[in-house]
């Protein structure tokens, strides 16, 4: 394990790993939910937490160069006085690093309108698997040649290590409003989601939590989430004052039409912050219900939301496991959480079976495997379910182009046997 402080030291660490025939794995804060930073087979773990400086801020161009270990929220704070922020806001934003965000192409509640990490990364300086350094992308609006930057973002450390990242900064909106809507059923909340979009409103964020999750986070933050609701929606709209007021009315109307039992607009910034703190603590707060959780991250078409959610609850019931839902409703990014206590004998088999069935249900509804958490080890063996052998082969060859010897975070993302001609074998999935 090593803690480099500069790009040169990262290159040196990669060099040492190579000389000793070892693989290497990049690690930020280790908040990844797919096991991407988990070391397999004794690699050299290159931890970026000491590379945590914001190197340059250009308020005119709205660009900042940062080291990969800068925490997401720290970056927004560092530019806050300029009326700017870094838009992608994963729920883990106080803890996760920009490097990890680039690695997983992280999303967050506010990515509904603003786009995920990839849309906010202009250039990345990387140390490649052979220890050489290079720049992918650039600050110009349209860099010539292939968009290798786009390839790198989301590569989960399998194409090298980001050592400096140029990110786009977003101006703070002049006016923001946050609405809390409560419903008697999950269906009503889900129908409201499609209704809002159908009404022509694109909120900055649109999040949903079901009853058990809502109660767990309320126990932690005390933000005034209704404990008796079956589902709550958290919607945020921003822009110019007049427009915001109109959008608030439109959302409230759709919610009421779908039987909302409560529509409340946060009175001030403090209340807004508390509501968001609640939403962003959801994954952590579930230990109040059971000590372990197993989480999926599938995206389904918004129009199928009601139907898929119903299936999710049915599958969980059939396997006698508890499922809770908290997710980015606006873009159909589901996070069904199966909670359990691993000390209970046999529970893991049921959880695993339910998890796989839920994922199949999402894929059958035309969904995709992961919205934002990445593939890592966890979803790796499900890749063939979504991609044809030809697709996988193309991806494997792309990876080989960056890392011909397979030393950068090996055994992640692509299942063994992705390359054509290799024996197809699907090893048992790993639970992180």
């Amino acid at each position: 394990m090593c803690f480099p402080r500069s790009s040169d030291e990262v290159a040196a660490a990669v060099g040492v790993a190579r000389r000793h025939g070892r693989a290497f794995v990049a690690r930020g804060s280790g908040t990844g939910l797919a096991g991407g930073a988990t070391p397999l087979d004794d690699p050299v773990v290159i931890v970026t937490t000491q590379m945590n400086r914001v190197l340059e801020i250009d308020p005119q161009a709205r660009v900042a160069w940062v080291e990969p270990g800068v925490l997401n929220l720290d970056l927004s704070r560092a530019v806050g006085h300029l009326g700017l922020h870094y838009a992608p806001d994963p729920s883990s934003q106080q803890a996760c690093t920009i490097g990890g965000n680039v690695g997983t192409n992280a999303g967050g509640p506010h990515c509904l309108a603003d786009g995920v990490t990839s849309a906010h990364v202009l250039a990345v300086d990387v140390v490649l698997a052979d220890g050489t350094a290079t720049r992918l992308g650039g600050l110009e609006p349209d860099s010539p040649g292939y968009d290798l930057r786009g390839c790198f973002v989301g590569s989960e450390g399998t194409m090298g290590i980001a050592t400096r990242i140029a990110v786009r900064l977003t101006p703070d909106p002049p006016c923001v409003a946050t609405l809390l809507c409560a419903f008697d059923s999950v269906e009503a909340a889900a129908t409201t989601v499609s209704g809002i979009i159908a009404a022509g409103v694109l909120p900055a964020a649109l999040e949903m939590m079901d009853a058990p999750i809502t109660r767990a986070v309320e126990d932690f933050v005390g933000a005034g989430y209704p404990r008796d609701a079956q589902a709550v929606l958290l919607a945020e709209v921003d822009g110019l004052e007049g427009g915001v007021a109109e959008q608030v009315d439109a959302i409230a109307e759709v919610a009421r039409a779908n039987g909302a039992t409560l529509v409340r607009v946060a009175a001030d910034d403090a209340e807004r912050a508390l509501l968001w703190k609640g939403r962003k603590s959801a994954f952590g707060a579930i230990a109040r219900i059971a000590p372990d959780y197993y989480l999926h991250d599938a995206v389904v078409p918004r129009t199928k939301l009601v139907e898929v959610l119903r299936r999710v609850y049915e599958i969980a019931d059939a396997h006698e496991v508890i499922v809770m839902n908290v997710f980015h409703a606006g873009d159909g990014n589901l996070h069904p959480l199966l909670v359990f206590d691993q000390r209970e004998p046999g529970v893991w088999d049921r959880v695993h079976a339910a998890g796989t069935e839920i994922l199949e249900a999402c894929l059958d509804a035309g969904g995709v495997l992961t919205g934002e958490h990445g593939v890592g080890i966890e979803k790796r063996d499900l890749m063939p379910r979504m991609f044809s052998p030809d697709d996988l082969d193309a991806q494997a060859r792309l990876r080989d182009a960056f890392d011909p010897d397979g030393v950068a975070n090996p055994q992640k993302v692509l299942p063994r046997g992705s390359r054509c001609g290799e024996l197809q074998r699907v090893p048992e999935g790993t639970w992180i």
Partner: protein
Amino acid sequence: MTGPLQLDAETLNACVSCGLCLPHCPTYRVTGREIASPRGRIAAMRAVETNEAPIDDAFRAAMEECVSCRGCEPACPSGVQFGKLMETTRAALPSPRSRVRRGAEWFGYRVVLPRHWLLITCTWLAWLAQRLHLVPARVGLPRLSARSLARGLELPTGGTPDAWLFTGCVMDAWLRDTHRSAARVMGATGARLAQPTNGGACCGALHLHAGREAEARALAERVMQSMPGVAPVVVDSAGCGATMKEYGKLLGSADAHAFSERVRDFSEWLAHQAAPRLRPTGIQVVIQDPCHLRHVQKAHGAVREVLAPAYELLETADDGLCCGAGGAYVVTQPELSRRILDRKVEALRAAGGGADPIVVSANPGCMVQLRGAGIDARHPADLIAEALDE
């Protein structure tokens, strides 16, 4: 499951390794090492508890590097009671091998702290050493005043007051003038005050953090006896106040719970009284929240409330991260403590707009630590006393 550390299984299992506590941990912030984070420490405890790892030097170091600031607790959505885990773990660690260290700990925890006269004697010796320029400035020992040490606190002892002013051990020896300020301000509200018999002496906080639970219990009993009745027990040291508010948990008795209910931080108590008249001073002060005031007592709002009429308050942008004082931590982990302090000083200067600001801090440990770095650190009681419009 109870293993070698005797930890409560439910408390240990409550951690889901989400990492949301990481940025709130001072040792993780300065080192970036997982093992120096709450999540890493819990993982290490779990490994020991399930007999997957031994209690070795690395484990001991990982536990001792923790400042016990408990910044990870309010940050944790799962409600992991980290303080409890750490205290129990430390109590289960075998005593250290180094004889020198064992001797020093024995002398400090068992001999000096419980005997207030001895602490005052040692303080006189320190005063002498200070006059002879034998104490380097970076140690952060406050400038001891012979006048203050020679004069007792002008408060009746014992009786049935409206409120007790707890005087404690180190605070009374080194910062007695702050007690005087507190007494003046409290007096200005019209309350009749008293100090505990035998000064209340040491509350046992330092013992508890060092895993010396039995000694802490004995001290707690003594403190409780020194302030009988139902009157509020006002404490102007955030670290002591936090421990005294947890006597109920420590001793488990109904008496201890009732006593803990009476404990108030100085600012917290003041915020609930008819406010004494203060003169607006126009002076800017940066607020430093002592960890045990913010994370444990959650009474940091009161400091702002009582100071706001007289001072212009500035906030730091570091979520109240620890200053690295941590009771005995400065002595046991000087290197980490200094790195945490450097970060804090940077945040305080940034909040003060670059120049060296006046900083308000409600805990003697933090005040001493900050002063060691050349920061003009004052107690809220001192600032309010200065602004009293009498």
